[in-house]
Every structure is written in C-alpha cells, then in structure tokens.
C-alpha cells in the first residue's frame, strides 16, 4: 500500500546517529519521522541464547551483509577492495553488533594537517565537541575510569568501570612491565540498571547481540525515549531516493516497503544517518534535476575518502586459566601509547590498541586455523579448543588517512532486493597504514611476551572487521573540499544534513561511535536552534 506522510524532519537510518538525532528533535517538539530499512530484533532472538551460537554467527548472524544476506540488508560489491565493510540493517543499526567500546578522539585528531602536515584539519575542535560527548555519555550511562592521562583533564564517566577480570589484569601487568600507557576500558555497557538498559551479566557475546539487554544498542536506548517523545519510526522502509525540487532543496524521501509499495514522506528537512556506506549510496541514488552528479555532490567528494580503520590483532594464549569466556567485549583495557606521530616511526599518526576476551572453544580453533594441520586437528584438537579459557586478544584500530581513490560508488549491475543499485567499495590499504599495522603487530606481540603468553598468533589484517565506516561526506568550511559544514548541513542543499560517520575529516584511531553520536547531537541541536531559518522548498516533487 502506498503511504504519503508529512513531517517537519525526516531522519534516514535508526542506528546510533539516527537515534540520537530523532530523539533530540522529538524531545524539542519537532515532528520527526525516522525511516529504517531493518526491523526490530528482540534480544531473545540473538544467537548467544543458543549453545550453538558459535555456528550461528558464521552465517545467519554474520557481521558481513554479503554472508548474512538478510531481507533488510543490501549487498556491497567488494571485488576491488582490500577489506569488506560490515554492518547491520535493523532498528538500532549496527549498534546491535558493536562492541560498545566508547572511546573519544584525541585533541590532535582534529588538527592533523596543522600538526603532522597530512590530510586536513576538522572544522571543529576536541573542546567544542566535549560537552556533547559528556551529554551522550550521561544518557547512555557509559562506564569507565576518569582521568585517563591520554586525554586532557576533564574526561570523566557517569558509571564505574567493569572489572578488568583476569584477562585485563594480566594484560595490564604486561603493559606496566614495558612502561606503556594503558587504561581500564570505557564501554557503553551498563554496569548497573540504567534507564532502559539492564545490568551487564558478562555473557561475553556483545558483538553478536547482547541477550541481556545491557549493551547500549540504540534500539534499547535513545530510540525508546525518542518514540516516547512522539517520534514516528517506520520499519522495513528502504529509502530509494531523497527528492529535491527545482530550487535544489530537499523535499522529502521516497521509500519502498516490504511489499514493494512505493511511499513518500514530505519534510522541511532531511537528515541522512545511513552510515559511511549507506549515506553516500543514497546521495548518489538521489541524483537528478539540480544535482546531476548526486545530491550535495558539487565537490565530487560524495563517496570519496572512505576510511575503514584497518584492524590487526595478536591473540596470546597463556598457561593460566583466565576465564576468557567472560565479558564484556567491550574493551577490557586500552592503550594510546602509539596513537601519535613520533619522529622515530616510519609512519605518521598511529593506532589505538585494546584488549578483548576470547569467548568460545570454536573461536580458539578459528584463531589457530592457519597453524599446521597436525597442530590443530586430530590429537591436538581438544587441547587447542581448551585454550579458549586462557586467551587474550590485543587488537589495533589503525588510522588510515583519507585518499580520494578510496571510495563508494554505485555498482553498475549489482542491486539490492528492491532493484536499487548496490554500493561498490573501492578501497586499498595505503603504505602508511601498512606500516602502522606491521608496527602494531610487533608491539602487541611484545606486550603478550611481557605478560607471559605461552604462544601468540598474529593476524596482520582483519579483512572482515571494518565496521568503522568513515569519511564519505566529509565536513569542512570550504564547499570545494567538503560535502557538508561543521553542522552537517550540505553546502549545496541547505535543508539536507548528514549526521553519521561519513562526516569524519580524518578517521583518528579511536572507535568512532562516541564521536558519531556527539556530532549527531550537536547537529540535531543546531537543527532545532535554526529551524525557523530553514528555507521552504518550492514545488515538492512526487
């Protein structure tokens, strides 16, 4: 059935960014409709409720939409990419899968051009963003220990930390032996009941859905409050195009429902929160009229400068039982020791390292797959599987610098279930990033050795882990060098906003969602504050 709705603002996507925008607008009395192509997923459906969860996450609950192939997903063409972006289409978006590591960028991240002579500075500073971070943290009940010396004074958390556990204590002792920075993890995981979140009971499967409802996935927090404040959420609604009128202003969004019906919501403003792949895809799908190369794309930068934070890991196995099946996961501890440019390095910028537990015996087997056959299978198998209790995973997000050739385009032949062009990702890992990865594999191996690991297994690149989708509609003051301004407003289309990871000018190396949501809050507040000045689109199409 075809529906025609009217709203003041339409938000596209209900992940962390869309949820924060929707809530902020609705709470301010704005009439807002949020369109989400996915559905609600109840925590009772998550794989961790079943003993065979380790098999269920291989396909049905895989992070990679190309493997999962769910009804709400769209495929991503990756044959010209070194890595495969992963995400989830659901109410709450990819946050149902995220680890909820809640880490802010550092002050230097906003000034990379000035400090290190590479990439570009952001149009805002750490200090400008900080109050928005603090507000989101309070809303979510982020857990951590204040006073991390890797940050300027004033970084405090509203909830106490999770235990370090045996895993964290052993890893931290190794860092102390080396004299390197570490700090207890900061996680958007409730240590105690908080608003609509339950208490974490350390089930350890945070990255495949929290069965306890303790992790701050945005279907459980922000969206419920947004709906209570009057926001309308439409699920199973795949936006096919943002419409624009003859004056170039956005007039609303078309969406296709699950029965293939075509619908439209007319609005005075459109906020795109479809993530660093989905947002440029939609802007490119919305070409036409005043925007022949895609909506808001006069700079030609929509889809360009994709950054994915390539990850490397070293898993260490220890003699002692570390209860490595226990969560949260979530970061146990993190280290910013090699985050910054140093004269002695052969690369600029650096990486953010963190510890995770290693839940599950099949995961222990997976970690050993590249070892010689006889060391994993047959007589060795039970012993290797048994290592699940004594594992520590050190992982690094590396800072990949923006490159215009790393980009999202529309694939000429691949389509989603509704016949819309799928995004094609063209992404190559740069030399600087490769050096950061190699360096961190060597350091993480040393860290395990210092902590007493019996054996270590390095993975130089985690090809299917990039859930950090950044840079493809970046902010800036210069319309020729950026897609949107520092409030997410498109330079070309003053009533169109972007509020997700596409905004990032550089990627930093911190997990991005804390920054994404702080930016989203700042943008939503700006929309509320300037609502009276929004231009009125002439000639609403469709």
């Amino acid at each position: 059935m075809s529906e025609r709705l009217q709203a003041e603002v339409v938000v596209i996507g209900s992940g962390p960014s869309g949820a924060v925008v929707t809530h902020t607008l609705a709470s301010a009395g704005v009439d807002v409709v949020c369109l989400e192509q996915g559905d609600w997923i109840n925590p009772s459906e998550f794989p961790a409720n079943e003993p065979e969860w380790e098999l269920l996450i291989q396909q049905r609950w895989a992070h990679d939409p190309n493997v999962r192939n769910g009804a709400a997903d769209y495929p991503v063409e990756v044959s010209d990419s070194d890595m495969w972006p992963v995400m989830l289409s659901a109410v709450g978006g990819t946050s149902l899968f995220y680890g909820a590591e809640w880490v802010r960028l550092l002050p230097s991240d906003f000034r990379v051009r000035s400090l290190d002579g590479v990439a570009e500075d952001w149009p805002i500073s750490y200090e400008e963003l900080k109050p928005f971070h603090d507000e989101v943290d309070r809303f979510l009940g982020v857990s951590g220990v204040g006073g991390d010396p890797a940050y300027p004074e004033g970084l405090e958390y509203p909830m106490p930390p999770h235990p370090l556990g045996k895993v964290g204590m052993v890893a931290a002792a190794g860092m102390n032996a080396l004299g390197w920075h570490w700090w207890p993890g900061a996680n958007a995981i409730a240590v105690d009941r908080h608003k609509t979140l339950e208490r974490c009971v350390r089930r350890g499967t945070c990255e495949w859905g929290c069965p306890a409802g303790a992790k701050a996935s945005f279907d459980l927090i922000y969206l419920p409050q947004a709906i209570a404040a009057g926001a309308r959420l439409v699920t199973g609604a795949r936006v096919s195009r943002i419409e624009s009128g003859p004056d170039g202003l956005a007039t609303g969004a078309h969406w296709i429902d699950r029965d293939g019906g075509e619908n439209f919501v007319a609005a005075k403003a459109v906020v795109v929160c479809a993530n660093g792949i989905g947002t440029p895809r939609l802007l490119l799908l919305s070409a036409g009229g005043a925007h022949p190369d895609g909506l808001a794309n006069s700079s030609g930068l929509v889809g360009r400068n994709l950054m994915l934070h390539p990850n490397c890991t070293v898993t260490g196995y220890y003699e002692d039982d570390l209860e490595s099946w226990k969560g949260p996961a979530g970061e146990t501890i993190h280290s910013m020791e090699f985050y910054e440019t140093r004269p002695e390095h052969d690369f600029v910028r650096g990486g953010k390292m963190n510890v995770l537990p290693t839940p599950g015996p099949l995961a222990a087997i997976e970690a050993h797959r590249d070892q010689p056959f006889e060391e994993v299978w047959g007589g060795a198998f039970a012993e290797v599987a048994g290592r699940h209790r004594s594992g520590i995973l050190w992982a690094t997000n590396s800072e990949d610098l923006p490159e215009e050739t790393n980009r999202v385009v529309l694939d000429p032949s691949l389509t989603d279930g509704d016949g819309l062009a799928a995004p094609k990702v063209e992404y190559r890992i740069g030399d600087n990033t490769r050096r950061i990865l190699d360096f961190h594999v060597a350091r993480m191996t040393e860290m395990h050795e210092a902590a007493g690991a019996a054996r270590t297994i390095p993975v130089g690149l985690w090809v299917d882990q990039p859930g950090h989708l950044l840079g493809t509609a970046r902010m800036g003051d210069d319309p020729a060098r950026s897609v949107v301004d520092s409030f997410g407003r498109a330079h070309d289309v003053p009533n169109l906003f972007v509020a997700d990871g596409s905004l990032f000018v550089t990627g930093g190396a911190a997990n991005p969602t804390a920054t994404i949501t702080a930016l989203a809050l700042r943008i939503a507040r700006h929309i509320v504050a300037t609502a009276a000045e929004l231009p009125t689109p002439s000639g609403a199409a469709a």
Partner: protein
Amino acid sequence: MNGVRELTAAEREALVAVADVLCGGGALPAPSETRGYAEWLDRALEARADAFDEVVAAALSLDGLSAAGRREALRLMSIDQRPRFHALSSVVAGAWLLVPEIRSALGYPGQIAAPAAFDEAASQLETGILDPVIERGPIYREA
C-alpha cells in the same frame, strides 16, 4: 529455524568418520564414542543450513578411504579448498564442542550469566595496578 532434511545413514557415517579424524586421538573420547554426538551434529547442521549440501558432499567425497587416507585428504582440503574445509570442519567439530560432556571437559560453561561482584572492579584497581600509569602523568599531545 530453517529446517534441514534428515541425514541418511551413509551420510551420517561419513560425517562422523570425518569428525573422528578432526577431533579424535586425544585424551577425550572421539566423536563416534561420544554419547549424544549424533543429536548435536543435527543441531550443528541446522545452524549452518546454508552449508548443508556442501558439508555432506565434502564428507561423502572421502568415503571408502582408510582413516589415514581420510586424514591426508582432509589435510589437503584444508589447503586447497579452504572454504569447503572451513564449513565441514566447523560443523563436525563444532558439533562435538556442543556435547555437554566435552564442554565440561574443556572447562567451557557456555556464555552464561556471570554477574560481577559489586566490589570486583574496585578491588582489582585497589591492587595499585594503575599506579605506574598515573605516576607517569599526562601523555596527550597538545593541539
């Protein structure tokens, strides 16, 4: 649940024979000697319904080989046909790891609720483990 068809006796036998090569030979009973393995194998196949045909065909392709021949064929498959070996080994070995007796022998309680004691985090930090980091002082770069 997607639902997969029942295995024939020959298919089941072939899968268990693969499982014995991949998981047997250590201190624990091999899958063919582990009570309940057959039921957990069904459950594992169901969890990887997408790979059912591939897994069964891969196991049947090793039919008629001696145990040593099967082992060598699996070793070669792990090198030359990685996706196929991944699916086959995940299902047959994953099934064995689901058997309660095996899980308890491996010290795996499952992803159970294990709420932290209220003072656990604080008492770990009170050991002074964070002191060297604090003593070193700020490390952030002025911007």
